[in-house]
C-alpha cells in the first residue's frame, strides 16, 4: 500500500502537482451510526477533515495500525460500507462569518433560519489552547444581569464562570436570557449556545430576543436535538473559540451554554460507542476535563477583553450533588441554584440563596452595592437557617430579637422577587433595599 502511494505521489508530482494537492482515498469498512471505521487512509492526520462519498463530512478521531475512526459531522446522504472516503489534508475546523451577529448559526457557517451559507467565511479552529495563566488578570468589573438576587447577593463579574443549575422548569434559561437582554447598550457581545435544544424552543428564544432588540448584539449558535452527536459535542467549543476571537480584539463577551448536562450525556454516548472505558455513572473518566478545558476559556484577558460564561446544568429532584453537577461546580466560579420549591411558592427568580455561591463576591461590585450586598446576604442566610429550626414555634412566644429577624427576613425575600425581563440597575436595587437599613438608625 505504502509503496503504491509513493508511486502515485511520484507520478502526480511529475505531472506538475505538488504533493499537497494529492488526495488520499480510503473506504468505509464498518458503520456504527455516526462512527465509521475506514481503511486505506494511511497518511491522514489526527483530526483531519474527510469527505465521504462526496456528500458527507467527518473528521479523523483515532488512528489505529490498520484503520482509522471517523466521526461524521454532516450527513448529506447515505453512508454504506465501501463508501469512498477522501482525505482533504486539512485539519477539521469550524466556519464562521463576521455577519453572524443577529443570526442563528451552526458551526459550518450557515444561517439556521434559512439554511443558507454566509458569504465571506473564515476558518476557526475548534479549540484554541487555554489562555495562559499569566495572560489573565483579576476579574473585577461587574456584569449586570438586572436581577437583584444575583447582582446584589451573588454577583457575576466580567470574565467569571457562573453556573446556573436547577430542575426542569425552574427558570434556568430565563436567567441567562434576562442577562442577555440586560446587556443592551452595554457594549457586550452575547453568544447563546444551544446544545441539543428542540427546534421549536430555539425559535421561541429567537423570537423573544428579537422582540426585545437583543439580537442586535447576540449570536445564537445552535446544535439542535437531532444534529449529529459529534456536532453537539463540538458546538460549545466553537462558541468559545468565536468568543476568544472577539476577546482578543478587546471586547467583552457573554457566552451562555445551554446546557452542559445534555453535552455530558452526548459525550458519554460517543465515548461508549468508540469503546472508551466507562467510569462513574458510565461517563468516561475524562468527562471532567471535557468541561474544565471548555469553561477555562472564560477569563479576563490582559488585553482588556473578557469572556463571561454562564453554563446551565439540569438536575433531577433538586439534587446538585450528582457527578456532573459537582464536576461543573468545581470548575465554575460560583453557582446560582434554582429550586422547584421556591418556584412553586412563586418566589421568582427561584434562587436558593443557601446553596448559591459566588467565589468572587464583592470583588466585582461597586462599593455601595458591595456594602449593601454583604449585609443583605448575611441577614438573609441567618434568617433562612433560623426559619428552618423555628418553623413550628409560635411567633408570639419568641424573643423580640428573633421576631424582628424573621420579619426582616420575610421583607428581604419579597424585595428579591422580580418578574422576567424586568431588569433593575444597581441604583434601583439599592433603592429597593435602602429603607431596610434606614430604620436601623434610632
Amino acid at each position, binding site marked *: 500500500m505504502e509503496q503504491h502511494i509513493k508511486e502515485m505521489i511520484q507520478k502526480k508530482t511529475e505531472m506538475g502537482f505538488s504533493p499537497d494537492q494529492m488526495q488520499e482515498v480510503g473506504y468505509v469498512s464498518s458503520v456504527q451510526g455516526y462512527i465509521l471505521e475506514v481503511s486505506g487512509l494511511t497518511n491522514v492526520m489526527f*483530526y483531519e477533515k474527510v469527505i465521504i462519498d462526496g456528500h458527507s463530512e467527518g473528521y479523523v478521531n483515532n488512528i489505529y495500525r490498520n484503520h482509522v475512526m471517523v466521526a461524521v459531522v454532516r450527513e448529506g446522504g447515505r453512508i454504506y460500507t465501501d463508501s469512498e472516503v477522501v482525505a482533504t489534508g486539512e485539519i477539521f475546523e469550524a466556519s464562521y462569518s463576521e455577519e453572524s451577529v443577529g443570526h442563528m448559526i451552526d458551526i459550518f457557517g450557515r444561517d439556521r433560519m434559512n439554511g443558507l451559507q454566509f458569504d465571506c467565511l473564515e476558518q476557526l479552529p475548534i479549540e484554541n489552547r487555554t489562555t495562559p495563566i499569566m495572560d489573565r488578570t483579576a476579574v473585577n468589573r461587574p456584569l449586570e444581569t438586572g436581577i437583584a438576587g444575583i447582582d446584589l447577593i451573588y454577583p457575576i463579574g466580567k470574565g467569571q464562570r457562573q453556573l446556573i443549575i436547577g430542575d426542569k422548569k425552574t427558570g434556568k434559561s430565563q436567567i441567562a436570557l434576562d442577562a442577555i437582554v440586560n446587556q443592551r447598550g452595554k457594549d457586550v457581545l452575547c453568544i447563546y449556545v444551544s446544545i441539543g435544544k428542540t427546534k421549536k424552543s430555539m425559535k421561541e428564544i429567537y423570537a423573544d430576543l428579537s422582540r426585545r432588540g437583543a439580537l442586535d448584539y447576540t449570536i445564537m449558535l445552535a446544535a439542535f436535538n437531532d444534529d449529529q452527536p459529534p456536532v453537539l459535542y463540538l458546538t460549545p467549543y466553537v462558541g468559545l473559540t468565536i468568543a476568544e476571537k472577539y476577546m482578543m480584539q478587546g471586547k467583552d463577551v457573554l457566552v451562555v451554554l445551554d446546557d452542559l448536562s445534555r453535552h455530558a450525556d452526548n459525550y458519554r454516548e460517543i465515548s461508549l460507542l468508540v469503546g472508551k472505558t466507562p467510569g462513574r455513572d458510565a461517563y468516561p473518566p475524562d468527562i471532567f476535563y471535557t468541561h474544565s478545558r471548555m469553561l*477555562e476559556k472564560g477569563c479576563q484577558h490582559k488585553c482588556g477583553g473578557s469572556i463571561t460564561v454562564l453554563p446551565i446544568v439540569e438536575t433531577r429532584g433538586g439534587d446538585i450533588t450528582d457527578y456532573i453537577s459537582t464536576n461543573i461546580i*468545581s470548575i465554575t466560579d460560583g453557582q446560582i441554584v434554582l429550586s422547584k420549591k421556591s418556584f412553586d411558592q412563586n418566589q421568582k427568580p427561584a434562587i436558593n440563596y*443557601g446553596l448559591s455561591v459566588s467565589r468572587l463576591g464583592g470583588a466585582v461590585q461597586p462599593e455601595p452595592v458591595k456594602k449593601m450586598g*454583604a449585609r443583605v446576604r448575611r441577614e438573609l442566610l441567618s434568617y433562612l437557617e433560623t426559619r428552618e429550626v423555628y418553623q413550628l414555634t409560635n411567633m408570639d412566644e419568641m424573643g423580640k*430579637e428573633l421576631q424582628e429577624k424573621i420579619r426582616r427576613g420575610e421583607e428581604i425575600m419579597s424585595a428579591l422577587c422580580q418578574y422576567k425581563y424586568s431588569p433593575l440597575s444597581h441604583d434601583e436595587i439599592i433603592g429597593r433595599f435602602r429603607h431596610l437599613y434606614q430604620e436601623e438608625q434610632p
Partner: protein
Amino acid sequence: MEQKNFVGKIISISDLNVTILLGGVKVRNREILETEHRDQTYRFEVFEAKGSIIFAIPLDSVIGLKRGLDVYTTGKELEMEYSDRLLGRVYDSYGAPIDGLPEETEQKKGVYARSLTMPEINIDGEVLWTGIKVLDFFAPMQKGYKMGLLGGAGVGKTVLIKELINNVYMKSQSNSVFVGVGERSREGKDLYDEMLEAGLLDKMSIVFGQMGENSVARNKAVFSGLTLAEYLRDEKKQDVLLFIDNIYRYVQAVSEINAELKRMPIENGYPATIESDVSMVEERINSTDDGSITSFQAIYIPADDITDEAVQVISSHLDGQIVLDRKVAEKGLYPAIDVFRTQSNMIDIEKIGERHYRLVQEVIRHLARYEELEEIIAVLGVDELSETDYNIFQRSRKLRNYFTQPMFVAENFTGIKGEFVKIEDVLRDVEDILGGVFDEVDEGHFSYIGSIPRE
C-alpha cells in the same frame, strides 16, 4: 543543536496515547521522545512497552500527527530546576517557566526521585498554630504533618488553603512551594498576584498544571512540585511548606490516561494501580533530620461521596484531616467544617494537654446531641425540651456560630476583616460557652468574630 537519536515510527494515535514501533533500539520507561511535524514539536513520555511496540503519552495536543512519522529520543526524563533559581518563579508541569521572566537554569534534576528510607525519616516536630479557631481546636498541626482538606465542590477548600498560606506562610520564615493541580487558572493567577503584591513571592515557588491542561500535564505537576520542595529540604536544609491544590486531580488525571490506554479499571473508572500511584507521591512528602516538609493538601470529594475510592486512598496517608460539609456551608457557617469527621493525630493528651483534649470531647458530645435535638425540635418545637437539653441546644448553637471566623482572604465575601485567633483564647472562650457564662447573650453575637471580647 542536540544530537537526536532515531527510535522508531508512529503507528497509531489517539488523544492520550501514541504507539511507536521501535527500530531496534532500547528506550527507558519515562524517557521523553520527540517528533516534528508541521513546524511543531510533539513530545511524548514512554509509558509502557510490549515487545518492540511502546505506548507513549503525549505531553500536549496530538492534533495534526500522522502515522509513519519518525520519533527521536531526547535521552532524558522530565526535568525540573534544582537550584536557588527556583525561588520566586512559576513553572508549568514540565518545568518550563511561565512567568515571562528569562529562563535561567543552573541545574536540573529528573522529577522522579526515590522515596525516603526508614532511617532518613524524622517524625518529630513542634506544634504549628494556624490561627484558625476550628482548625487549631479540632485538628491541631505539627511541623512535618500532612493535613488534608477534604470537601465537595464549592464548599470552601481553596479559600481555606489560601487562608493557611496567609496565616502560616506569611508569619513563618519558611520557604514554600505551591502546586496547582487541575484547579482554576483564575485562582492561580490571583494567588500569584497576591504573593507578588505582598512581597512574598521571593520565598515561594509555584507549579501550575491547571484544569485547562491535558491529563498528562495535570498528572506531572505533582512530581515537578515535589522536586522543588525536595531541593529546599535536602539541599537548603529548610523547613518547607507545601501546598497542593488539589491532589485528587492527580488521581483523576491518572484515570484519564488509564482509560485511554484501555487498561482495566476498578470501580468508578479509577486505575487498578491507584494505591501505588498515590503512595509514589505521598511517600516522598516526609521530613528528614535536615529539613521538614509540612503539607496542606486539598482533596476534592467527587459527587459529595466521601467513600470514594480515591478520597479514601489519599486520606489514609494523612496525619490529620479537615472535612468540609455542604450542609454546614448551606447555613452560611464558614469555614464549613464537619466536626465529627475532622481529626488529627495530635488529639492526644500527651501532645496537646488534658484541658484541650477534654474540651474537644465535650464540644463533640454537645454537638452530637444537638444534631439529635434538631430532629426532635423539627417535630415538637423548642419549648418541649428538658432544661439540660435546652442548655445543650442553646450552647451548641453558640459554639457553632463561634467556630465561624472572618478570614483574611474572604474579606470580599464577608465584608469583615480577618482575624488570627490564639489557641489560649479559643480554649477559654469554649470553656466559658460550655460553662454557661454567656447563656444570656444572643447567639447572633458569636458569628464571625475572633475571640469573644471581654470587659
